[in-house]
Protein backbone atom coordinates (compact mmCIF):
# COMPACT_ATOMS: atom_id res chain seq x y z
CA UNK A 1 0.00 0.00 0.00
CA UNK A 2 1.80 3.11 -1.13
CA UNK A 3 -0.08 6.33 -0.86
CA UNK A 4 0.15 8.70 -3.80
CA UNK A 5 1.78 11.25 -1.56
CA UNK A 6 4.89 9.10 -1.10
CA UNK A 7 7.02 11.79 -2.65
CA UNK A 8 5.65 14.67 -0.62
CA UNK A 9 8.27 15.79 1.82
CA UNK A 10 7.79 15.27 5.51
CA UNK A 11 10.49 16.24 7.96
CA UNK A 12 12.91 13.51 8.98
CA UNK A 13 12.03 11.52 12.10
CA UNK A 14 14.45 11.65 15.01
CA UNK A 15 15.78 8.19 14.19
CA UNK A 16 16.26 9.18 10.53
CA UNK A 17 18.10 12.34 11.55
CA UNK A 18 20.44 10.43 13.85
CA UNK A 19 21.16 7.81 11.28
CA UNK A 20 21.88 10.36 8.54
CA UNK A 21 24.25 12.27 10.75
CA UNK A 22 26.15 9.04 11.37
CA UNK A 23 26.20 8.28 7.64
CA UNK A 24 27.51 11.74 6.90
CA UNK A 25 30.38 11.35 9.39
CA UNK A 26 31.17 7.93 7.93
CA UNK A 27 31.13 9.41 4.41
CA UNK A 28 33.52 12.17 5.43
CA UNK A 29 35.95 9.67 6.95
CA UNK A 30 35.63 7.10 4.20
CA UNK A 31 33.99 8.42 0.99
CA UNK A 32 33.32 5.90 -1.80
CA UNK A 33 35.84 6.19 -4.64
CA UNK A 34 34.57 8.33 -7.51
CA UNK A 35 31.98 10.25 -5.49
CA UNK A 36 31.90 13.68 -3.94
CA UNK A 37 29.19 14.87 -1.58
CA UNK A 38 28.38 18.53 -2.21
CA UNK A 39 28.18 19.99 1.26
CA UNK A 40 24.98 21.86 2.11
CA UNK A 41 23.12 22.34 5.35
CA UNK A 42 20.25 20.21 4.07
CA UNK A 43 20.47 16.76 5.68
CA UNK A 44 17.35 15.56 3.87
CA UNK A 45 18.66 16.11 0.33
CA UNK A 46 22.16 15.09 -0.64
CA UNK A 47 23.64 16.08 -3.99
CA UNK A 48 26.48 13.79 -4.97
CA UNK A 49 28.91 14.15 -7.85
CA UNK A 50 29.65 10.91 -9.70
CA UNK A 51 32.76 10.42 -11.80
CA UNK A 52 32.67 7.70 -14.45
CA UNK A 53 35.24 5.01 -13.62
CA UNK A 54 38.48 4.96 -15.64
CA UNK A 55 38.51 2.37 -18.41
CA UNK A 56 34.68 2.33 -18.78
CA UNK A 57 32.34 3.99 -21.29
CA UNK A 58 31.76 6.80 -18.79
CA UNK A 59 35.42 7.59 -18.03
CA UNK A 60 36.02 11.33 -17.69
CA UNK A 61 32.30 12.14 -17.45
CA UNK A 62 30.69 13.72 -14.41
CA UNK A 63 27.07 13.41 -13.33
CA UNK A 64 25.00 14.46 -10.35
CA UNK A 65 22.89 12.23 -8.14
CA UNK A 66 20.12 13.70 -6.03
CA UNK A 67 19.25 11.68 -2.93
CA UNK A 68 16.08 12.58 -0.99
CA UNK A 69 15.43 10.93 2.34
CA UNK A 70 11.91 10.08 3.52
CA UNK A 71 10.61 10.68 7.04
CA UNK A 72 11.18 7.04 8.01
CA UNK A 73 14.62 6.49 6.55
CA UNK A 74 16.22 3.91 6.77
CA UNK A 75 13.05 1.79 7.06
CA UNK A 76 12.02 3.37 3.76
CA UNK A 77 14.35 3.69 0.80
CA UNK A 78 15.69 7.08 -0.20
CA UNK A 79 14.65 8.45 -3.58
CA UNK A 80 17.68 8.46 -5.85
CA UNK A 81 17.73 10.09 -9.29
CA UNK A 82 20.28 11.55 -11.66
CA UNK A 83 19.91 15.28 -12.14
CA UNK A 84 19.45 15.61 -15.95
CA UNK A 85 21.41 15.35 -18.15
CA UNK A 86 21.54 11.72 -16.95
CA UNK A 87 24.13 9.26 -18.26
CA UNK A 88 23.14 7.32 -21.40
CA UNK A 89 22.55 3.82 -20.03
CA UNK A 90 20.06 1.01 -20.73
CA UNK A 91 18.64 1.32 -17.19
CA UNK A 92 18.65 5.09 -16.79
CA UNK A 93 15.78 7.17 -18.17
CA UNK A 94 16.33 10.64 -19.61
CA UNK A 95 14.44 12.19 -16.67
CA UNK A 96 17.06 10.74 -14.33
CA UNK A 97 15.04 7.79 -12.99
CA UNK A 98 17.09 4.66 -12.39
CA UNK A 99 15.85 1.08 -12.76
CA UNK A 100 17.82 -0.65 -9.98
CA UNK A 101 16.20 -3.09 -7.54
CA UNK A 102 17.99 -1.92 -4.37
CA UNK A 103 16.39 1.53 -4.76
CA UNK A 104 12.92 0.01 -4.52
CA UNK A 105 11.80 -3.54 -3.59
CA UNK A 106 15.20 -4.77 -2.47
CA UNK A 107 16.10 -1.78 -0.31
CA UNK A 108 17.08 -2.68 3.22
CA UNK A 109 18.19 -0.61 6.22
CA UNK A 110 21.45 -2.56 6.06
CA UNK A 111 22.31 -0.44 3.01
CA UNK A 112 23.71 3.08 3.09
CA UNK A 113 24.06 6.04 0.73
CA UNK A 114 27.59 4.90 0.22
CA UNK A 115 26.58 1.33 -0.73
CA UNK A 116 23.95 2.73 -3.14
CA UNK A 117 26.61 4.86 -4.82
CA UNK A 118 28.87 1.85 -5.25
CA UNK A 119 26.00 -0.15 -6.82
CA UNK A 120 25.18 2.69 -9.22
CA UNK A 121 28.80 3.06 -10.28
CA UNK A 122 29.05 -0.68 -10.81
CA UNK A 123 25.89 -0.56 -12.93
CA UNK A 124 27.42 2.21 -15.05
CA UNK A 125 30.76 0.47 -15.33
CA UNK A 126 29.33 -2.84 -16.55
CA UNK A 127 27.32 -1.28 -19.38
CA UNK A 128 28.46 -2.45 -22.83
CA UNK A 129 26.58 0.27 -24.70
CA UNK A 130 25.55 3.88 -24.22
CA UNK A 131 21.85 3.96 -24.92
CA UNK A 132 18.51 4.79 -23.31
CA UNK A 133 16.04 2.09 -22.18
CA UNK A 134 13.79 0.91 -25.04
CA UNK A 135 10.70 2.32 -23.33
CA UNK A 136 12.30 5.67 -22.43
CA UNK A 137 9.94 8.01 -24.30
CA UNK A 138 6.76 6.31 -23.13
CA UNK A 139 7.97 6.26 -19.52
CA UNK A 140 9.19 9.85 -19.41
CA UNK A 141 6.03 11.15 -21.09
CA UNK A 142 3.96 9.49 -18.37
CA UNK A 143 6.15 10.83 -15.57
CA UNK A 144 4.96 14.42 -15.63
CA UNK A 145 4.58 16.63 -12.57
CA UNK A 146 7.75 15.44 -10.88
CA UNK A 147 6.44 11.99 -10.07
CA UNK A 148 8.78 9.97 -7.86
CA UNK A 149 10.37 6.82 -9.32
CA UNK A 150 9.33 5.12 -6.07
CA UNK A 151 5.75 5.22 -7.37
CA UNK A 152 6.68 3.21 -10.43
CA UNK A 153 6.31 -0.57 -10.45
CA UNK A 154 9.61 -1.70 -11.82
CA UNK A 155 10.45 -4.98 -13.43
CA UNK A 156 14.07 -5.96 -12.79
CA UNK A 157 14.57 -8.18 -15.78
CA UNK A 158 18.24 -7.84 -16.48
CA UNK A 159 20.91 -8.79 -13.99
CA UNK A 160 23.83 -8.45 -16.37
CA UNK A 161 24.16 -4.67 -16.46
Amino acid at each position, binding site marked *: *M*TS*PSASSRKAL*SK*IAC*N*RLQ*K*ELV*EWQVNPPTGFKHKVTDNLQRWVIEVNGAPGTLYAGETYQLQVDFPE*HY*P*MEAPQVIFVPPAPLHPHIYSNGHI*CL*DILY*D*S*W*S*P*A*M*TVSSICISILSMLSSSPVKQR*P*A*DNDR*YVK*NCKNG*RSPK*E*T*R*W*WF*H*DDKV
Partner: protein
Amino acid sequence: MFVEYKLFFWTDDDIMQQQSAIQAEEAGKIPFVGMILVLLLQEPLSSLAAEYKSGNPILLEKIKVLTEQYAAIRRTRGDGNCFFRSFMFTYLEHILESQDRTEVDRITVNVEQCRKTLLSLGYAEFTFEDFFALFLEQLESVLSGNEASISHEELVQRSRDQSVSDYVVMFFRFITSGEIRKRSEFYEPFVQGLTNTSVEQFCKSSVEPMGEESDHVHITALSDTLGVPIRVVYLDRSCDDKGSFSVNHHDFIPVVRDLTNTNSDDAEAIKPFISLLYRPGHYDILYPK
Protein backbone atom coordinates in the same frame (compact mmCIF):
# COMPACT_ATOMS: atom_id res chain seq x y z
CA MET B 1 12.00 -1.54 -17.39
CA PHE B 2 8.82 -0.28 -15.76
CA VAL B 3 5.53 -2.16 -15.66
CA GLU B 4 2.92 0.34 -14.55
CA TYR B 5 2.45 3.19 -12.13
CA LYS B 6 1.35 2.16 -8.72
CA LEU B 7 -1.09 4.49 -7.09
CA PHE B 8 -3.29 2.45 -4.84
CA PHE B 9 -1.42 -0.76 -4.96
CA TRP B 10 -2.78 -3.61 -2.87
CA THR B 11 -1.37 -7.10 -2.73
CA ASP B 12 -3.65 -10.11 -2.82
CA ASP B 13 -2.75 -10.74 0.81
CA ASP B 14 -3.88 -7.26 1.82
CA ILE B 15 -7.18 -7.79 0.09
CA MET B 16 -7.73 -11.21 1.62
CA GLN B 17 -6.89 -9.96 5.09
CA GLN B 18 -9.08 -6.95 4.58
CA GLN B 19 -11.95 -9.20 3.60
CA SER B 20 -11.50 -11.55 6.51
CA ALA B 21 -11.17 -8.59 8.88
CA ILE B 22 -14.41 -7.15 7.54
CA GLN B 23 -16.12 -10.51 7.92
CA ALA B 24 -14.81 -10.80 11.46
CA GLU B 25 -16.04 -7.31 12.22
CA GLU B 26 -19.46 -8.14 10.87
CA ALA B 27 -19.45 -11.14 13.14
CA GLY B 28 -18.69 -8.71 15.95
CA LYS B 29 -15.41 -10.33 16.82
CA ILE B 30 -12.67 -7.95 15.89
CA PRO B 31 -12.77 -4.17 16.07
CA PHE B 32 -12.00 -2.96 12.58
CA VAL B 33 -10.40 0.43 12.58
CA GLY B 34 -10.20 1.27 8.91
CA MET B 35 -6.77 -0.20 8.36
CA ILE B 36 -5.31 -3.61 8.83
CA LEU B 37 -3.46 -3.88 12.11
CA VAL B 38 -0.18 -5.75 12.09
CA LEU B 39 -1.39 -7.78 15.06
CA LEU B 40 -4.95 -8.63 16.02
CA LEU B 41 -6.60 -9.63 19.28
CA GLN B 42 -6.47 -13.16 20.61
CA GLU B 43 -9.40 -15.20 19.32
CA PRO B 44 -10.66 -18.62 20.38
CA LEU B 45 -9.52 -21.34 18.00
CA SER B 46 -13.14 -21.86 16.97
CA SER B 47 -12.78 -18.73 14.82
CA LEU B 48 -10.42 -20.73 12.64
CA ALA B 49 -13.09 -23.35 12.00
CA ALA B 50 -15.58 -20.58 11.24
CA GLU B 51 -13.21 -19.27 8.59
CA TYR B 52 -13.34 -22.60 6.74
CA LYS B 53 -17.05 -23.18 7.28
CA SER B 54 -18.25 -25.07 4.20
CA GLY B 55 -14.60 -25.41 3.22
CA ASN B 56 -12.30 -28.32 2.62
CA PRO B 57 -13.26 -31.30 4.88
CA ILE B 58 -9.62 -32.25 5.53
CA LEU B 59 -8.90 -28.75 6.83
CA LEU B 60 -11.94 -28.89 9.08
CA GLU B 61 -10.88 -32.26 10.48
CA LYS B 62 -7.37 -30.94 11.10
CA ILE B 63 -8.72 -27.86 12.87
CA LYS B 64 -10.71 -30.21 15.10
CA VAL B 65 -7.45 -31.96 16.07
CA LEU B 66 -5.75 -28.60 16.66
CA THR B 67 -8.60 -27.52 18.91
CA GLU B 68 -7.71 -30.37 21.26
CA GLN B 69 -4.23 -28.95 21.79
CA TYR B 70 -4.56 -25.23 21.26
CA ALA B 71 -6.91 -22.76 22.87
CA ALA B 72 -6.49 -19.63 20.82
CA ILE B 73 -5.01 -17.94 17.81
CA ARG B 74 -3.69 -14.43 17.31
CA ARG B 75 -3.57 -13.26 13.72
CA THR B 76 -0.89 -11.11 12.16
CA ARG B 77 -0.99 -9.04 8.99
CA GLY B 78 0.11 -10.80 5.82
CA ASP B 79 2.74 -8.24 4.95
CA GLY B 80 5.66 -10.59 4.47
CA ASN B 81 6.88 -9.91 8.02
CA CYS B 82 4.37 -12.19 9.74
CA PHE B 83 6.91 -14.80 10.89
CA PHE B 84 9.22 -12.26 12.50
CA ARG B 85 6.32 -10.27 13.91
CA SER B 86 4.69 -13.39 15.39
CA PHE B 87 8.02 -14.41 16.90
CA MET B 88 8.56 -10.95 18.37
CA PHE B 89 5.18 -10.79 20.04
CA THR B 90 5.17 -14.36 21.36
CA TYR B 91 8.67 -14.07 22.76
CA LEU B 92 8.04 -10.76 24.53
CA GLU B 93 4.66 -11.99 25.78
CA HIS B 94 6.35 -15.10 27.19
CA ILE B 95 8.88 -12.99 29.09
CA LEU B 96 6.16 -10.64 30.32
CA GLU B 97 4.15 -13.55 31.69
CA SER B 98 6.99 -15.74 32.99
CA GLN B 99 9.29 -12.92 34.23
CA ASP B 100 12.08 -15.37 33.43
CA ARG B 101 15.19 -13.30 34.13
CA THR B 102 17.52 -16.21 33.45
CA GLU B 103 16.15 -16.39 29.92
CA VAL B 104 16.54 -12.63 29.48
CA ASP B 105 20.16 -12.81 30.63
CA ARG B 106 20.76 -15.75 28.30
CA ILE B 107 19.29 -14.07 25.24
CA THR B 108 21.12 -10.82 26.00
CA VAL B 109 24.40 -12.71 25.75
CA ASN B 110 23.29 -14.14 22.38
CA VAL B 111 22.30 -10.68 21.13
CA GLU B 112 25.76 -9.41 22.04
CA GLN B 113 27.22 -12.31 20.07
CA CYS B 114 25.03 -11.32 17.08
CA ARG B 115 26.44 -7.81 17.25
CA LYS B 116 29.97 -9.21 17.04
CA THR B 117 28.97 -11.47 14.16
CA LEU B 118 27.64 -8.55 12.11
CA LEU B 119 30.76 -6.49 12.80
CA SER B 120 33.02 -9.36 11.77
CA LEU B 121 30.99 -9.75 8.55
CA GLY B 122 31.76 -6.11 7.75
CA TYR B 123 28.44 -4.43 8.57
CA ALA B 124 28.89 -0.82 9.70
CA GLU B 125 27.73 -0.55 13.30
CA PHE B 126 25.59 2.52 12.61
CA THR B 127 23.44 0.51 10.20
CA PHE B 128 22.22 -1.90 12.89
CA GLU B 129 22.81 -0.36 16.34
CA ASP B 130 19.45 1.46 16.52
CA PHE B 131 17.62 -1.79 15.80
CA PHE B 132 19.55 -3.66 18.50
CA ALA B 133 18.90 -0.89 21.01
CA LEU B 134 15.18 -0.94 20.30
CA PHE B 135 14.92 -4.70 20.80
CA LEU B 136 16.87 -4.59 24.07
CA GLU B 137 14.59 -1.75 25.19
CA GLN B 138 11.50 -3.90 24.54
CA LEU B 139 13.09 -6.80 26.40
CA GLU B 140 13.76 -4.57 29.40
CA SER B 141 10.23 -3.19 29.33
CA VAL B 142 8.52 -6.56 29.68
CA LEU B 143 10.40 -7.23 32.91
CA SER B 144 8.54 -5.82 35.86
CA GLY B 145 9.99 -3.62 38.55
CA ASN B 146 11.64 -0.92 36.51
CA GLU B 147 10.51 2.49 35.37
CA ALA B 148 9.97 1.37 31.79
CA SER B 149 7.83 -1.68 32.69
CA ILE B 150 4.74 -2.14 30.57
CA SER B 151 1.49 -4.09 30.87
CA HIS B 152 0.22 -6.76 28.50
CA GLU B 153 -2.11 -4.24 26.92
CA GLU B 154 0.79 -1.88 26.29
CA LEU B 155 2.77 -4.72 24.75
CA VAL B 156 -0.07 -5.33 22.28
CA GLN B 157 -0.21 -1.63 21.47
CA ARG B 158 3.53 -1.36 20.97
CA SER B 159 3.55 -4.41 18.77
CA ARG B 160 0.97 -2.68 16.61
CA ASP B 161 2.91 0.58 16.50
CA GLN B 162 4.97 0.20 13.37
CA SER B 163 7.62 2.64 14.52
CA VAL B 164 8.47 0.07 17.22
CA SER B 165 7.28 -3.16 15.67
CA ASP B 166 8.96 -2.75 12.29
CA TYR B 167 12.25 -1.88 13.96
CA VAL B 168 12.15 -5.07 16.01
CA VAL B 169 11.26 -7.06 12.88
CA MET B 170 14.26 -5.48 11.19
CA PHE B 171 16.46 -6.38 14.17
CA PHE B 172 15.49 -10.03 13.62
CA ARG B 173 16.23 -9.70 9.91
CA PHE B 174 19.72 -8.39 10.69
CA ILE B 175 20.61 -11.18 13.09
CA THR B 176 19.04 -13.87 10.85
CA SER B 177 21.13 -12.63 7.96
CA GLY B 178 24.24 -12.53 10.17
CA GLU B 179 23.71 -16.14 11.27
CA ILE B 180 23.15 -17.40 7.71
CA ARG B 181 26.25 -15.62 6.41
CA LYS B 182 28.37 -16.71 9.36
CA ARG B 183 27.47 -20.36 8.71
CA SER B 184 27.17 -20.02 4.96
CA GLU B 185 28.63 -23.49 4.28
CA PHE B 186 25.86 -25.06 6.35
CA TYR B 187 23.10 -22.96 4.79
CA GLU B 188 24.30 -23.02 1.19
CA PRO B 189 22.50 -26.23 0.10
CA PHE B 190 19.20 -25.01 1.61
CA VAL B 191 19.55 -21.62 -0.03
CA GLN B 192 20.41 -23.26 -3.34
CA GLY B 193 17.30 -25.40 -3.06
CA LEU B 194 15.15 -22.35 -2.52
CA THR B 195 16.47 -19.73 -4.88
CA ASN B 196 19.48 -20.96 -6.80
CA THR B 197 21.53 -17.95 -5.71
CA SER B 198 24.54 -17.43 -3.48
CA VAL B 199 24.10 -17.17 0.29
CA GLU B 200 25.16 -13.54 0.17
CA GLN B 201 22.68 -12.67 -2.57
CA PHE B 202 19.94 -14.57 -0.73
CA CYS B 203 20.56 -12.56 2.44
CA LYS B 204 20.57 -9.31 0.49
CA SER B 205 17.40 -9.96 -1.44
CA SER B 206 15.34 -12.36 0.71
CA VAL B 207 16.32 -11.77 4.34
CA GLU B 208 17.31 -8.14 4.86
CA PRO B 209 14.58 -6.26 2.94
CA MET B 210 11.35 -5.73 4.91
CA GLY B 211 8.36 -7.62 3.55
CA GLU B 212 10.34 -10.60 2.26
CA GLU B 213 8.65 -13.79 3.39
CA SER B 214 10.32 -16.28 5.68
CA ASP B 215 11.12 -19.88 4.93
CA HIS B 216 12.71 -22.77 6.86
CA VAL B 217 16.11 -21.16 6.38
CA HIS B 218 15.07 -17.96 8.16
CA ILE B 219 13.40 -19.85 11.02
CA THR B 220 16.35 -22.19 11.55
CA ALA B 221 18.80 -19.29 11.58
CA LEU B 222 16.77 -17.12 13.97
CA SER B 223 16.16 -20.03 16.32
CA ASP B 224 19.86 -20.94 16.29
CA THR B 225 21.27 -17.49 16.71
CA LEU B 226 19.00 -16.57 19.62
CA GLY B 227 18.91 -20.08 21.08
CA VAL B 228 15.11 -20.06 21.15
CA PRO B 229 13.17 -23.17 20.11
CA ILE B 230 10.17 -22.59 17.83
CA ARG B 231 7.26 -24.93 17.03
CA VAL B 232 5.57 -24.55 13.65
CA VAL B 233 2.24 -26.32 13.18
CA TYR B 234 1.25 -26.90 9.57
CA LEU B 235 -2.31 -26.55 8.40
CA ASP B 236 -2.79 -27.56 4.79
CA ARG B 237 -4.89 -29.92 2.68
CA SER B 238 -2.33 -32.71 2.57
CA CYS B 239 -3.34 -36.29 3.33
CA ASP B 240 -2.12 -39.73 2.24
CA ASP B 241 -3.63 -41.82 -0.61
CA LYS B 242 -6.07 -43.47 1.76
CA GLY B 243 -7.38 -40.08 2.80
CA SER B 244 -6.04 -40.25 6.32
CA PHE B 245 -4.09 -37.35 7.69
CA SER B 246 -2.27 -36.03 10.69
CA VAL B 247 -1.57 -32.51 11.78
CA ASN B 248 2.15 -32.13 11.35
CA HIS B 249 4.43 -29.89 13.29
CA HIS B 250 8.11 -29.23 13.25
CA ASP B 251 10.18 -28.11 16.22
CA PHE B 252 13.11 -25.90 15.36
CA ILE B 253 15.56 -26.72 18.12
CA PRO B 254 18.66 -24.55 18.34
CA VAL B 255 21.97 -26.38 18.09
CA VAL B 256 23.89 -26.18 21.33
CA ARG B 257 27.31 -25.00 20.32
CA ASP B 258 28.72 -24.38 23.74
CA LEU B 259 29.10 -27.90 25.16
CA THR B 260 30.16 -26.62 28.58
CA ASN B 261 26.57 -25.42 28.97
CA THR B 262 25.12 -28.86 28.46
CA ASN B 263 23.44 -30.06 31.61
CA SER B 264 20.30 -31.81 32.76
CA ASP B 265 18.23 -28.64 32.36
CA ASP B 266 18.55 -28.87 28.59
CA ALA B 267 15.75 -31.38 28.21
CA GLU B 268 13.47 -28.76 29.70
CA ALA B 269 15.09 -25.94 27.75
CA ILE B 270 14.38 -27.41 24.32
CA LYS B 271 10.62 -27.49 24.75
CA PRO B 272 9.36 -24.66 22.51
CA PHE B 273 7.33 -21.96 24.24
CA ILE B 274 6.64 -20.36 20.87
CA SER B 275 4.00 -22.01 18.68
CA LEU B 276 3.12 -20.66 15.27
CA LEU B 277 0.44 -21.79 12.88
CA TYR B 278 1.62 -22.01 9.29
CA ARG B 279 -0.83 -21.91 6.44
CA PRO B 280 0.80 -21.72 2.99
CA GLY B 281 2.31 -18.25 2.81
CA HIS B 282 1.37 -17.08 6.28
CA TYR B 283 2.18 -17.41 10.00
CA ASP B 284 -0.12 -16.67 12.95
CA ILE B 285 0.39 -17.21 16.68
CA LEU B 286 -1.04 -20.25 18.48
CA TYR B 287 -1.74 -20.53 22.20
CA PRO B 288 -1.50 -24.06 23.66
CA LYS B 289 -4.10 -25.18 26.17
